[in-house]
């Protein structure tokens, strides 16, 4: 039996790719998105009957582009997700596994709401928003820097630390709401002060503009500043960074401050420009989604803008499909899950090549061929 096995060449082999043309890599990625959407349609057809296959496509696009307001929502949701993705990118670039964006943004939200609660109506709205921004940044930076200091000084595990900080932040928000709402309902409701001005009669426009500015700024920071270069070096190899005289501890803490500032901005946008309130689930898991989005965008702000957009597109479209077909709230999660599965999975085919066994050829010495 064993003899037969050694005589045969396996059906396919996996070979590491050294270099792949950028065009080809993006071709594979777009192919993965298309396959994910097709599988999504097949899943809908299985769940909702044959006609659901067509409904999936029309519903997907209608849900995102069906009305001018849906298009605005697409860009608003993209902006918030991108803002959080921008916040996690610098840390991930230096291989600091910050999975605490959820809590850091939530603390940013809390900072803004604290300011509204105690200063609202007493000072001019413009200055109120400025103070909200400062408070949001301060709250988020504190939340981001605590794990960074522990990592830099005592080499604690930042993944667990930042994760746990999320839950502490949620409890803090719950306690604050409990203190502010005497009826005990656990719901703060919208606040009248500290709202962003409407631009052209529309909500959310200012959010989109601010995030676009932040994305450009972070792109320039990565590309052209010495700090950006230092982040890359620390990410590549801490030892190399030490040899060239980079103070690694300083870079870790400084980068987490930057991360905190961007989380604070996201918190401000959620309170001042979106919800006008805070709740335990204000960030709605986007702190985690943003990590995937940032990773898919290879931590490059323009690419992250595209991946955020793509995620929100699939999510918003799938929600509309769920409404049209009377599916539950888990349906959009299934579709975005399929999307992530294929898009992340396709990276395998970018890094590796699959070689099939040649058809008619009779391998005389397969071992040698593998070696070559």
């Amino acid at each position, binding site marked *: 039996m064993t003899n037969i096995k050694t005589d045969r060449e396996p059906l396919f082999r996996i070979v590491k790719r050294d270099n792949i043309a950028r065009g080809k890599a993006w071709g594979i990625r777009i192919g993965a998105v298309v396959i994910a959407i097709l599988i999504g349609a097949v899943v809908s057809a299985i769940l909702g009957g044959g006609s659901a296959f067509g409904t999936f496509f029309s519903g997907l696009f209608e849900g995102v582009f069906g*009305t001018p307001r849906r298009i605005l929502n697409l860009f608003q949701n993209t902006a918030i997700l991108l803002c959080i993705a921008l916040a996690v990118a610098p840390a991930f670039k230096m291989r600091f596994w910050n999975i605490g964006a959820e809590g850091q943004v939530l603390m940013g939200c809390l900072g803004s709401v604290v300011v509204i609660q105690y200063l609202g109506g007493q000072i001019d709205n413009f200055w109120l928003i400025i103070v909200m921004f400062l408070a949001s940044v301060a709250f988020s930076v504190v939340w981001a820097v605590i794990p960074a200091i522990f990592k830099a000084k005592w080499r604690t595990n930042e993944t667990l630390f930042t994760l746990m900080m999320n839950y502490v932040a949620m409890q803090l928000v*719950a306690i604050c709401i409990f203190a502010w709402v005497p009826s005990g309902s*656990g719901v703060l409701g919208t606040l009248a002060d500290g709202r962003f001005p409407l631009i052209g009669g529309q909500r959310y426009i200012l959010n989109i503009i601010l995030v676009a500015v932040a994305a450009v700024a972070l792109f320039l920071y990565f590309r052209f500043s010495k700090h950006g270069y230092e982040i890359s070096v620390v990410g590549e190899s801490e030892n190399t960074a030490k040899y060239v005289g980079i103070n690694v501890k300083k870079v870790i803490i400084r980068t987490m401050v930057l991360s905190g500032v961007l989380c604070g901005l996201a918190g401000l946008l959620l309170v001042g420009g979106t919800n*006008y309130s805070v709740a335990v689930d204000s960030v709605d898991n986007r702190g985690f989604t943003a990590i995937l989005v940032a990773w898919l965008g290879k931590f490059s702000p323009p690419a992250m803008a*595209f991946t955020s957009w793509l995620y929100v597109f699939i999510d918003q479209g799938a929600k509309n499909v769920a409404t049209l077909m009377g599916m*539950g*709230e888990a349906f959009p999660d299934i579709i975005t899950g399929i999307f992530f599965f294929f898009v992340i999975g396709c990276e395998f085919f970018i890094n590796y090549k699959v070689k099939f066994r040649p058809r008619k050829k009779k391998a005389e010495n397969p071992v040698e061929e593998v070696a070559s």
Partner: protein
Amino acid sequence: MKKKILALVLVLALVASVAIGLAACNDNGDQLVFGLICLHDENSTYDKNFIDAAREAAKAKNAKLIIRTGIPESAACYDAAVDLVDQGCDVIFADSFGHETYILQAAEEFPEVQFSHATGTHAHTEGLDNFHNAFASIYEGRYLAGVVAGYELNEMIESGKITADQAKMGYVGAYPYAEVVSGYTSFYLGAKSVCPSVTMEVRYTSSWYDETAEKNTATALIDNGCVLISQHADSSGAPTACEEKGVPNVTYNLAFPDNDTYLVGSRINWAPYFEYLIDCVANGTEVADDWTGHLSTGSVELLAYGAGVSDEVKAEVEKVKAKLLDGSLKVFDCSTFTVGGKMLTEYMADVHPDPDPKNPIPDTQVIKTENGVTYFAESADGFRSAPYFDVRIDGITEINEA
């Protein structure tokens, strides 16, 4: 190359969307369109109760129904509401307490569309013509369910399973909020009306819907000596815990007839209100600011009985129900309970929310005397539909672990 492909994909997406947008330009004709916004979906017993009623009402009134599930209590609720307006909805209803201020925001923007909201408190103070609240006197339903629970406890005492002092019930609450306090107090008073020695322990989950927390809380109550469990939280967590531990259970919103431990439950039937709402909008008549359903309107219902409930108990419950209907029995009759050892003779309740905390609207005296009975007037006409009974009465211990 990368940019070209990207541009191409974007252009194709836009073209496809415009084509679909034009093709899908919806024409609803004369049919009225009813939009329902739900916090969760049919897996939540609370939301399922609204969805079932909306389907029933829409069918009865030949209205088109659009249901949006999984809408959080954030700007997403406002977005969902205005999107429903864009889809041609004539009337939009949201089911969760935290949706209220976002629905209010949409109502201010679209005065030609009617908005309504369950459990809310702002409609009668905001003064908008197109924003309304609704609830039902569910305390009557919980009282009846409590009567069934009381008979069950009596049976346990008679059979020697427990002593009269051990008749302790457990209650899984969501938040220490008036709606929950009103609910558990009425349930307790119902049980106490037939089993005078009963006590109750209440624990909170700090969430309206958290299956794990509800199950764990119910288990903790059982471990702490509770021999019967009820709940005001929206998943099947507590019924599951009772089934595992073999402890009788009184549910809310949804019957669990397959569970051996299931006794009975109560629910608000929203179909009468939805039909009223659709009729008002169709006929152009004014919708009540604050609508309260009752046993008499079919809005408050006892769920189907479990297999273990005897016919004698069912007959007794019918008698109590008749007394509630003719007004001779009041659930919050002040002579049936004490607060700090004393009878409640006056209570100023926060009936009107305070939009401006620095300039609060005065509280309201809610203790009334009618035909010689002094009672707490819950969800009463002229006050508001959402509960405001937040008195902690003797016999109930409240433990807040949050």
